[in-house]
Structure formats: structure tokens, C-alpha cells
């Protein structure tokens, strides 16, 4: 209960901090929504030409892209430091979080809000509304799938960025796998053979952020729900274990820091 109060307080502080620069906050939010619309226009043109890719049409892409954007936005908004964890570790900036009486991983990743995430988050809902699959039941499934996909995504970020405990700065590698996750996340899952699918459920769990949640939103199945639940719990557990193991190797640093 205390940790929930703490999270609410830190998110409030994040929001206050982001809103100190009103114009930057609004422009990032609107800019990101516009960016997503422009990016998605390519898929609209693509499906206008090919209509169908192994059973996937443009409506499926609306849902897949939507859920991916919302999950991405949710992590950016509430756990923004998950994107910067490698830098925080390698520059010795975990000291601050380690000196506080709260779970260090939760405190660290929740201590930053990336304002553009609001644009991604909202865009996802618009994209789902435009998909032609919209129902109120579907919307409830959308919210649940978004939470589970965001959990997988945050856990994946923590996992890859925690490698910095062992190998020093990993921000380039993390960006690389992050791009792979997002790129494969929006591809129709039907494009891939079984071997590729194994990779997309494990090493780069893009399927758990795009196509599986999209399937679950379109129609409830126990299979897709259990895939999402197992993926979210499994990846989060693994990420926590790896981060904790890494923390024992944390070496701090003496760099002068001028802001939190």
C-alpha cells in the first residue's frame, strides 16, 4: 500500500516536472501523435496495394500498431527511466535510488516521465477506434492487453539495459534491440515460420507486444490471454532477478552530477 502511495507521489512529481515546460510538454505529445499517423500512412498505402498478407489486413494493423503504441507510451509515461537504465547504471547514478528506502528498481524506472509517451498512449486508442474492431468488450480487453504488453516491454528493457552491470554502457545495444522489438512487433505474426516465432516469443518478445495482444483484443481466447500472462510474469520475474544479481556488482562512480 505504501509503495502504491509512493508511486502515485512520484508520478505526480514527474508530471509537475514535465509541465514546468508547458510548450515542450504539449509539442512532444502532439508531435508524437502526428509522427505515428505519418508512419502508419505507409502501412495504409501498403495494404491498399496488397490488401492481405497471410490473413492480415489493414484493420489488423490498426489494432497491432495501436496496442504497440499504447504499451510503449504507457512505459514511457510511467517508467521512463527504463529506457535510460543502462546509462544510469554505468554512470553510477543508482546511488541516489539506493540511498532511499524504496525498492530500487521500481524507484529508478518510475522517476522519469517521457512526455512524448502521452502522444503514443493516446494514439493507440485512436488507432483501435479506427480499426473497425471496436466494441466495448474489446476496449476492456485492449486495456488489459496494453497493461500486459507494457509489462513485457518494460521487463525487456530492464533485462537488456541491466547488462550494463556486467559490460558497462549498453545504450547502443539496448537501442538496437529496442528497435528490433518495435519493428518485429508491428509485423503480422503470420509472416514468420516456427523458428522465427520462437525468437519472437523469447529472445525478442515482440509477439507479446504486438500480434498476441492484437489477437486477444479482436477476440477473447484463453490461449492468447495465457500467453500474455505467462509472458508478462515470466519476463518481469527474469528482469527482476537479473537486475538484483547485477546490483551486487554495481560500482557507483564519482562523476559530478548537476541534476536529478
Amino acid at each position, binding site marked *: 500500500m505504501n509503495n502504491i502511495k509512493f508511486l502515485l507521489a512520484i508520478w505526480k512529481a514527474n508530471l509537475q516536472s514535465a509541465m514546468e515546460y508547458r510548450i515542450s510538454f504539449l509539442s512532444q505529445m502532439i508531435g508524437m501523435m502526428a509522427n505515428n499517423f505519418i508512419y502508419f500512412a505507409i502501412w495504409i498505402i501498403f495494404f491498399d496495394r496488397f490488401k492481405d498478407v497471410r490473413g492480415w489486413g489493414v484493420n489488423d494493423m490498426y489494432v497491432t500498431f495501436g496496442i504497440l503504441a499504447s504499451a510503449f507510451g504507457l512505459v514511457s509515461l510511467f517508467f521512463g527511466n527504463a529506457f535510460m537504465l543502462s546509462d544510469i547504471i554505468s554512470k553510477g547514478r543508482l546511488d541516489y535510488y539506493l540511498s*532511499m528506502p524504496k525498492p530500487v528498481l521500481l524507484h529508478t524506472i518510475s522517476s522519469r516521465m517521457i512526455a512524448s509517451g502521452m502522444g503514443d498512449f493516446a494514439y493507440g486508442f485512436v488507432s483501435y477506434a479506427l480499426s473497425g474492431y471496436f466494441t466495448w468488450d474489446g476496449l476492456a480487453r485492449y486495456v488489459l492487453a496494453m497493461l500486459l504488453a507494457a509489462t513485457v516491454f518494460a521487463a525487456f528493457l530492464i533485462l537488456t539495459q541491466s547488462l550494463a552491470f556486467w559490460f558497462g554502457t549498453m545504450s547502443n545495444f539496448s537501442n538496437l534491440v529496442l528497435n528490433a522489438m518495435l519493428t518485429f512487433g508491428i509485423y503480422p505474426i503470420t509472416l514468420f515460420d516456427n523458428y522465427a516465432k520462437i525468437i519472437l516469443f523469447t529472445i525478442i518478445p515482440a509477439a507479446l507486444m504486438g500480434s498476441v495482444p492484437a489477437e486477444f483484443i479482436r477476440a477473447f481466447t484463453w490461449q492468447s490471454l495465457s500467453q500474455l500472462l505467462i509472458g508478462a510474469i515470466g519476463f518481469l520475474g527474469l528482469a527482476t532477478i537479473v537486475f538484483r544479481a547485477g546490483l551486487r556488482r554495481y560500482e557507483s562512480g564519482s562523476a*559530478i552530477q548537476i*541534476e536529478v
Partner: protein
Amino acid sequence: MNSIKVKNLQKTFQTKRKAAGLGGSVRSLFKPEYSSVEAVNNLSFEMEAGELLGFIGPNGAGKSTTIKMLTGILHPSGGEASVLGFTPWVDRQKLAFQIGTVFGQRPQLWYHLPAIDTFTLFGKIYELDDRETKKRIDFLAEAFEMKDLLEVPVRKLSLGQRMRCEVAASLLHRPKLILLDEPSIGLDVVAKQNIRDAIRRMNQEEGVGVLLTSHDAGDLEALCKRVIIVNHGQIVYEDKVSNLKRKFLTTKLVEVRYAEGVAKDFSIDGVEILKVGHYGVKLKFDAAKTSVESVLAHISAAGDIVDITISDPPLEEVIAKIYEQAKEYE
């Protein structure tokens, strides 16, 4: 009762070594070489509850590493430590409720927000209720003279003002012990004095123990009753500050002004004459070798004294002397 007990504490870092130039970088890419650096080497000491303890040493002496192990930020390579009854790296969260930390080089206040917002957030982090947080903020605002600063975004405060708020923030949850790592770094004389006054007040009024690391002997002189001097991760001196002064501050500087002119060849056996002016002299002597009484007798015999000042050399010189002795011993 001890608030800190440290026994044979050690911390070894693995540091990558690389020869200069591109060739060195390429070799290091395929065959990296590491060497061990002992940042803290068999350190043992104790600190009483409510004590003001100075922990000083030059850059790289192991001060910050020790503080980081005592707060649970770093895991040691060996040895034991108990802080307020907790093993810091095992019970980090429980310990954090009982201690406050300030790292002079690492701010904890949110840069874009007014300090009061960070104070309120800390209230939630330390699980205080809202009324208690507000009451405590009011008290600290008065104790640290920062009422006018609380609603200004931190980025707009001067370094001195910000550090005052930083130290106050670390005291929000009424810790029993605060660990201050270079709290006066980069501050001017007035700002340093303000911080020292506030820390002294909190020690006297709330009995907060203070472990302070600093480069600045002035912090030590103004605040601490006892001092531990470290170099190369080991203790080179440990005693009361008053004993440190008595043992090492044997050199006295004397400035005298006379009513009439002074002889140009003014001299006293065993005393170094630094300057002879028309009406005054400045001299230096070692009180362990030449008696103060005989020097004063000579000074007084030389004419009618208008004014006299006897002072100790700055503590920095003493500490430098201790480092030198430790180096010779090695």
C-alpha cells in the same frame, strides 16, 4: 552506544587498463587487461551515537567508497559493518528509514521543481503522514533559514542555497544519523558557515549523529569533535580534534606591535623572524623546542607592547603533514 561499527572493511575495484593511443585501444578490445585497486583496505573504526565525526582524506583516499558501503549503496569485498544495528548492504531499505545522506556532488532535489515539492515527495518516500511532513518542513525551513527558498525552482537557487535545502531534505524523516559526503564542496565562506551552523544545531537539538567527509579542514574544525584521517583506503590518524591540534599545532605564529620603533636586528634564540617592520615584528617558533614563556619575555623586554596576536597554523598544514608522515612510513 555505537551507531557505526566497522571491522576490517575492504573494497576492491577491478579497473580496466589500456595503453595510450589507437593501438592500445585495439589491443584492449581483444585482450582487455584489468588491475585491482584497493579503495578501502582493512578499515576498522567505531562511532558513538550522536557523535560528530570527521572522515577526511585527499582525493581517492576511500572516503566516499566507505560512506557508500555504510549506506548500502556498495557491497564490500570483505569485512563487516553495522550501522544502527543493521548490516547496510543486507538491510538497505530498513536502514534508509533511519539515516539521511547527502552527496555534495549528487543532488537529490528535483532540478525543475521547487524544493518544497521534493520535500513533499520525500514525505511519501519516508512514509510520513501529510500533517507530519508539513510540520517538519516548517521546522526545517526555520532551522535552515530557507522559508523564502522553498517555492523557487531548484534550478534557480544558488549552490549555497541548494545545499542548504539538500541537507534539510536529508533530515526530513528525523534520521538518527546523517552521512554527509563533501557537503561544502564548491561553496563560498558564508554558505559553508550557514551549512555548518545548521548541522551543529540539528546535532545539539535532535542528537543526530554526523559522519562528515570533507576536503575542507574548516568543516572539521568547525563541526567535529573527533577525526579519522584516511589515505589509500587506510586510517592514518584517529583522535579527538583537540588532541590533533595539541600534538601537531606546536608551531606558533606571533605578530607584535610596539609603541616605539623596533630595532632592525631584532632576534630571539630558537625563533624564526619572518618580518621586522618599523613598529612591529612577525615571528614563528616551535613551542615544543622553545618555551612560550621565554619567547614572550623577550618580546616584552623589547619595548611597550600595543597589540599582540598568537595563532596556530591552518589545520590544512597539519593534515598535509600527517599525509606526508604516512607517505614516509610507507
